[in-house]
C-alpha cells in the first residue's frame, strides 16, 4: 500500500481536472452525436426492422414477416429493372461527367485569358438547386417551344418528346445531371493537374516526348488517382440523386426513369409500403457502404504512400 501513496497524492488532482475535461468534451460533442443517433443511426436500424414487417403506416399491427419482403423484392422483375435503370443512369452520368470534365479541365488549364470567368460559368450550375434546374430544363425539353427543339431545328431535326417518350426520358435525365454536376469534376481535375510535378513534363520533354505522348504518359497517369476519387464520389452522388428525377420525369414515363432512391420515396410516400421501402433502403445502404469502403481504402493508400 505504501508504494502507492505518492501516486494517490498526485492522481486525484489530475484526474479531477481530466474528468472536468471529459465532461466538457461530452457537452461539446454531445448534441451533434445525439442528433446523429436519433436522425441517422436509429433510422438505419429502424429500416432494417421495417424491412422485416408488413406495414402500411396506419394499422397498429406490424406483422413480422422475416425475409419475405426481401424475397418478394428480389423475385420481382420490376425491382431488377429498377436496379438496372439505376446502373444505366449511373454509368452514363458518371462516364460522361468524367470524360467531358477531363476535356474541359484540360482546356481551362491552358494559359488563356478569361479562363477564370469560364471556370466560374462551368461551376455555377453546381450551386443551383437541382429541383429548379429540373424545372428550367423541363421547359428546355419542351418539344414545341423549348430550346432544344430550336437548336435541333438548325440541323433540320425534330425534337423527340423527351419527357413523355420512354426511350428519351432517361437520356434527358442524364443530360441534366451532367450539366449540373460537370463543374465539380472540372474543379477536382484542375486541382489534380496542379499536383502533377512539373519535373515529370520536363523529363518527358528531354526524352523527346511530344505533346500527345506527354498527355498520354504523364498527364493521364498523374490524374488517375483524382479520376478514381471522382468516379466513386460521382457514383455516390448519382445513387442519391432525387430532385432532378422527381421534378423532371417523376420516375416516368411508366417507371422508365425510376432509380432506387426514387423507388424508395415512392414506396414510402406514394404507395405507403413501409416494409418494401425498408428493403430498398437497406439495399441502397449496402451498395453505398461498399463504395465508401473502396474509397476509404484508396484514401488511406494515398495518405500512407504519398
Amino acid at each position: 500500500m505504501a508504494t502507492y501513496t505518492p501516486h494517490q497524492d498526485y492522481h486525484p488532482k489530475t484526474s479531477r481536472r481530466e474528468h472536468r475535461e471529459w465532461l466538457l468534451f461530452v457537452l461539446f460533442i454531445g448534441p451533434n452525436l445525439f442528433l446523429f443517433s436519433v436522425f441517422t443511426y436509429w433510422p438505419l436500424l429502424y429500416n432494417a426492422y421495417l424491412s422485416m414487417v408488413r406495414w402500411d403506416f396506419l394499422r397498429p399491427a406490424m406483422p413480422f414477416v422475416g425475409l419475405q419482403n426481401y424475397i418478394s423484392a428480389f423475385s420481382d422483375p420490376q425491382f431488377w429493372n429498377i436496379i438496372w435503370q439505376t446502373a444505366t443512369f449511373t454509368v452514363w452520368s458518371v462516364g460522361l461527367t468524367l470524360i467531358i470534365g477531363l476535356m474541359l479541365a484540360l482546356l481551362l488549364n491552358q494559359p488563356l485569358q478569361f479562363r477564370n470567368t469560364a471556370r466560374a460559368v462551368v461551376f455555377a450550375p453546381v450551386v443551383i438547386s437541382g429541383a429548379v434546374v429540373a424545372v428550367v430544363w423541363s421547359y428546355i425539353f419542351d418539344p414545341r417551344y423549348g430550346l432544344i427543339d430550336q437548336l435541333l431545328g438548325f440541323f433540320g431535326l425534330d425534337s423527340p418528346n423527351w419527357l413523355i417518350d420512354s426511350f428519351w426520358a432517361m437520356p434527358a435525365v442524364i443530360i441534366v445531371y451532367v450539366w449540373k454536376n460537370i463543374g465539380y469534376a472540372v474543379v477536382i481535375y484542375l486541382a489534380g493537374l496542379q499536383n502533377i510535378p512539373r519535373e515529370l513534363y520536363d523529363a518527358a520533354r528531354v526524352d523527346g516526348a511530344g505533346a500527345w505522348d506527354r498527355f498520354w504518359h504523364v498527364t493521364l497517369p498523374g490524374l488517375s488517382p483524382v479520376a478514381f476519387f471522382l468516379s466513386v464520389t460521382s457514383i455516390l452522388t448519382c445513387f442519391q440523386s432525387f430532385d432532378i428525377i422527381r421534378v423532371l420525369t417523376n420516375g416516368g414515363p411508366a417507371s422508365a426513369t425510376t432509380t432506387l432512391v426514387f423507388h424508395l420515396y415512392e414506396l414510402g410516400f406514394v404507395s405507403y409500403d413501409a416494409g418494401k421501402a425498408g428493403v430498398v433502403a437497406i439495399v441502397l445502404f449496402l451498395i453505398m457502404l461498399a463504395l465508401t469502403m473502396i474509397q476509404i481504402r484508396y484514401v488511406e493508400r494515398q495518405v500512407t504512400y504519398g
Partner: protein
Amino acid sequence: MDVTNEIEQRMAPAATRRQSLPFSLLAWRIAGYVAMLFVVLVIGLPVYWTVMSAFKETREIYSLPVTWWPANPTLANFPAAWQAAPFGRYYLNSFITTFLGAAAEVILALFSAYALAYLRFPRKDLVFLLLLAALMVPVEITIVPNYLTVARLGWINTYQGIIIPGAAIAYGTFLLRQAFLSVPREILEAAKVDGAGHLRILFSVVMPIAQPAIVTMALLSIVSKWNDFLWPLIVTNTTDMRTLPIGVFWLRNSEGLSNWGVVMAGSLFLIVPVLIAFLLAQRAIVEGMTAGAVKG
C-alpha cells in the same frame, strides 16, 4: 494542347511574347479561345434561356419560331409569379430554415471540432469515427423512419421539423477540426497561461484564426440548406410551409406548359440569390465543396 504551357514558361518577358509566337502556336491559342467560348455558351445557355424567357410576353413564348431575345421585354412575369404562388411566404420559410439550419450546423461543428481537436477524452478516435461514419448513411435512406419520428414529435409541417433532422454535421466538423489542428500550439499555450478557459480560447483565439475555414463551412451549409428539396418536400404539407424549391416545383406543376414565362420568373427568385452569393464568395464555396478531394 499543353504546348502553349511550355512556351508560356520559356518566354518570360511578357512583352516579347506576342511577337515571337510562331504561327502554329497562334493557331492553338485561337482554337483554345474558340473552344472556351463554345463551352461557356453551351453551359451558360440554359441560364440565359431562363432569364430571357422570364422577360418575354406569354404570347411570344408560345409563338414560333422561338426568339433569342424578348421582342417586347416585360416585367409582368415577376408579379404574376409572385401572385400565382405565395413567394413572399416561400422566401420567409427559406430564409428561416436556411439561416437556422446553417447556424445550427456551424455551432455544432464549432463545438464538436474544438472538442475533437483539443479536449482529452478516452478513445477520442472512436468518437471521431462514430461521427464520420454518419457520412456513410445518406439522408435519402433515412426519410421513412425520420418521417415517423418527426410525426411522433408532432413536428410535421413545422420549422423544427424541417430543420432539426438535418442539423447534425459530420463533414463540417471534419473540415473545422482540420483547420483547428493547424492553429499554432504556442498561441494556445499562451492563452492558457493567461488563464483563458476553453470557451474563451474557442471564441477569441481559435475562431479568429480559423475564420476562413468557418466562413467556407458556413457558406456550404447555407447553399445546401437553400437548395434542399427531398426532406422539406416530405415534411411539409401545406402551401404556407413550403420552401422556395418546393414552391417553384409546384408552380411548374400548376403553370408549366401554359405559362412558362411565369415559371421561369419564379425560378429566378431562387436562382438569383444563390448566384449572387456564388459570385461574391466563389473561392470559398468551390474550396469547401472540393476540400478533402485532393491531398497536398
